[in-house]
């Protein structure tokens, strides 16, 4: 053995990486200044951020909160900062925020839309967070469609009850008839029974019950609805009703029954081919022409119908995408298990197809919620309609940034949380391995 060794026998201690490669400095080097081009981009964007913030921050925070008109606002600004530029006049929001939120809803009844919103959140909880909330709450979810109009419009309690009875009667007729005769006949008879109840018998029932037991709360006219409340109301109804209709339309479009298929295709492509505003024209001008002479039902109800049909068509396409993305083997597997069409849909196809289409469904929700502001064009006083009215008011003539920032923030909060929720849901339902 020679004592001259070429090979080091002991390991060198591990050295810490250079200070410029780790920690905040390393991060900055890698992410902001990794080359001359990147460095220029970083500097330009830093300047852009500075430019925007230096305008927006003083504007937002060095602002006037208490004034009666824009002129008074400007006087206060002149006195305080010596210029009227670069300072927000939040006084307009301070003055009108209740109106922007509730429209012309009677102020002593504000608790009703607020209660409806709270109940909505509670009713949604078992659906949205199914694993953390007791399933018993689903009873409230089922009752909510009838509670909502009662709270919003008020009037007699027998109206919503009679509407709910229609469903009960339809279901009863279906169960009896499908046991006695056949499932198909049962469905038809059930639907017919419900329609007869709603169109013919329900008004007598409501009248009779109202004279026997007059329970009710103060009624509110539709023209008093407005503001952000209207957007939420229209959005909730259109979203809630369009999902089931959309599923039915998508199944119809995918089905082997030619006539059903082409009816669905025609409906979907027609609705998707025209802008929502023309459908709202139909709601405000034509829908009364299409109904029996003398019918004159509520403008908000008409708008709800058209918005629901509109979003149902988009929903149908999204769900059809999910159905098409499902591997053929799933359909064949369901067939080989001997499941019939509806069992296969309910147990195998729909849970997977809906899961695939969650992002699309939620972006349709967001789209329809944003589109509710279009009702300002047919003369309803939603937020944008109210903003125009406020801008036309002599006291606030010439104000725009503050109003639109407020309205934009309202929509941003709702839409952004919806999109974040869909990401959460996607992660939660993720069962595949990637």
């Amino acid at each position, binding site marked *: 053995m020679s004592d001259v060794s070429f090979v080091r026998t002991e390991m060198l201690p591990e050295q810490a990486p250079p200070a410029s490669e780790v920690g905040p400095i390393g991060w900055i080097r890698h*992410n*902001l200044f*990794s080359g001359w081009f*990147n460095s220029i*981009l*970083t500097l330009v*964007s*830093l300047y852009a*951020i500075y430019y925007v913030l230096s305008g927006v921050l003083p504007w937002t925070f060095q602002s006037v909160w208490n004034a009666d008109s824009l002129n008074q606002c400007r006087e206060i600004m002149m006195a305080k900062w010596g210029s009227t530029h670069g300072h927000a006049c939040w006084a307009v929001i301070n003055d009108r925020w209740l109106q922007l939120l509730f429209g012309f809803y009677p102020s002593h009844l504000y608790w009703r839309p607020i209660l409806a919103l709270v109940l909505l959140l509670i009713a949604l909880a078992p659906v949205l967070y199914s694993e953390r909330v007791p399933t018993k709450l689903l009873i409230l979810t089922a009752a909510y469609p009838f509670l909502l109009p009662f709270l919003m419009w008020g009037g007699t309690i027998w109206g919503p009850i009679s509407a709910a009875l229609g469903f009960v009667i339809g279901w009863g007729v279906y169960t009896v008839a499908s046991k006695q*005769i*056949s499932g*198909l*006949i049962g469905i*038809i008879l059930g639907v017919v029974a419900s329609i007869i109840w709603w169109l013919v018998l329900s008004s007598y029932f409501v009248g009779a019950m109202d004279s026997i037991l007059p329970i009710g709360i103060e009624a509110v006219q539709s023209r008093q609805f407005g503001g952000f409340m209207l957007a939420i109301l229209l959005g909730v109804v259109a979203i809630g009703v369009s999902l089931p209709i959309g599923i039915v339309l998508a199944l119809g479009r995918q089905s*082997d*029954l*030619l*006539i*059903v298929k082409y*009816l669905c295709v025609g409906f979907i*492509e*027609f609705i*998707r*081919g*025209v*802008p*929502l*505003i*023309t459908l709202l*024209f*139909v709601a405000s*001008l*034509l829908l*009364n*022409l*299409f*109904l*029996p*002479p003398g019918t004159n039902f509520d403008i908000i109800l008409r708008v709800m119908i058209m918005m629901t049909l509109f979003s149902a068509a988009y929903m149908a396409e999204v769900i059809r995408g999910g159905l098409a993305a499902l591997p053929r083997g799933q359909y064949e597997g369901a067939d080989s298990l001997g499941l019939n069409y509806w069992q296969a849909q309910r147990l195998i196809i729909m849970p997977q197809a809906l899961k695939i289409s969650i992002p699309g469904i939620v972006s349709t929700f*967001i789209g329809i919620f*944003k*589109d509710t*502001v*279009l009702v*300002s*064009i047919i003369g309803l006083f939603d937020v*944008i309609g109210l*903003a*125009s009215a406020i*801008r036309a008011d002599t006291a606030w003539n*010439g104000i*725009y940034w503050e109003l*639109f920032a407020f*309205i*934009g923030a309202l*929509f*941003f909060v709702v*839409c*952004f949380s919806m*999109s974040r929720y869909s990401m959460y849901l996607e992660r939660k339902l993720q069962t595949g391995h990637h």
Partner: protein
Amino acid sequence: MTTLTDPPKEHFRLSMLLYDTRYRSATIQVIALIGFMLLAAWIISNTIQNLEALGKPVEFGFFGEPASYDINQRLLEYTSRDSHLRAAFIGLLNTLVVAVLGCITATIVGVFVGVLRLSNNWLIARIMTVYVEMFRNVPVLLWIVLAMAILIEGLPAPNAFRGDNPTATMDLFNSVAVTNRGVYIPEFLFSRSLGDIHLFGASSIRFNVSLDLIAVLVVLAGSIFFMRKVSARASAKQEATGDRPTIWHIQLGILFVPMIILLSLLGFHLGYPELKGFNFKGGTHMRNSLIALWLALSLYTAAFIAEIVRAGILAVSHGQTEAASALGLRPGRTMRLVILPQALRVIIPPMISNYLNLTKNSSLAIAVGYMDITGTLGGITMNQTGRELECVLLLMLVYLCISLSISAVMNWYNNSVKLVER
């Protein structure tokens, strides 16, 4: 071995319509058809009764009557003495103008933002995320109305440009005037113009075609044809010898020399806007309504396109890039020859639906008073004549035609770039 025997032939019984799956589908279809026809008949008969009660039978004669309202932003000549049909035609062209402008701008901005969102630069990626989220989560109508408010309230009035010490000045070497009455940009003029061709005589869709424009387009097409010839020849030489001759200076020459000769022959010059009286004269006047609509629609749609572009680029697996660089392709060529063709297949279908959305959203023009087809046919014409049914149905038909033709064209393009599988 087993032998299969046919099941005994059953005679058709009426109850099989309900219980036999072979016949039940026919039953369901017949019931659906009858239900649909009943509904349609009910609606039509109601409509006829209602219209009779109102004394307004369905007829389209009002289209020939003079419209007697003005359209301030228009491509073709139009006076208030022209018919309602002419007004609707001008409105349709306005819709198409804003849709085309919007689609082009939205694509440019959207691709730019989408690529930058994937940038390695953390700050840039965050800024672009903020832009996308901000525009996607706020209604487009709000952006349109806000853009209009900014243009009207935030920009200087024309008389701010007046005097020795004006508070506002024209931009871009005194050629563009940005005022609260709109933007005035230079117009193209020809001092030795070839004149116009008048098409369709005096009908409602009459329009003039400038011969100068045709000459310019013909020369441009010729130049491009020869440029492709030169490029093809260079490629052939590269195939044969391996060397690609330098051709960019020839290409530039072919593109510019004939065009410059033609323009100087026609006496091409720019007509600048000038302040005369209370307003600017000369140049092309783009109204605030057009600019607000265009800006808001394109920035809004660009946010969606950015997401599509980003998803499309992310959808191309990283192995493709690595394989391309293993073959020795430079990054630019990797992008052009490997990544983009594959990303485009993912990008194009949702892009089509966004173009369609932009076109349909352009109907919100009515909120800012831009006279598109909704503003003319569905707005003033409808209010003046009181023919809601005819106007709204025609309006829907027009949009349906636009949508269907855009999606037909785009689907054709999509099929032509689609990956051909077995």
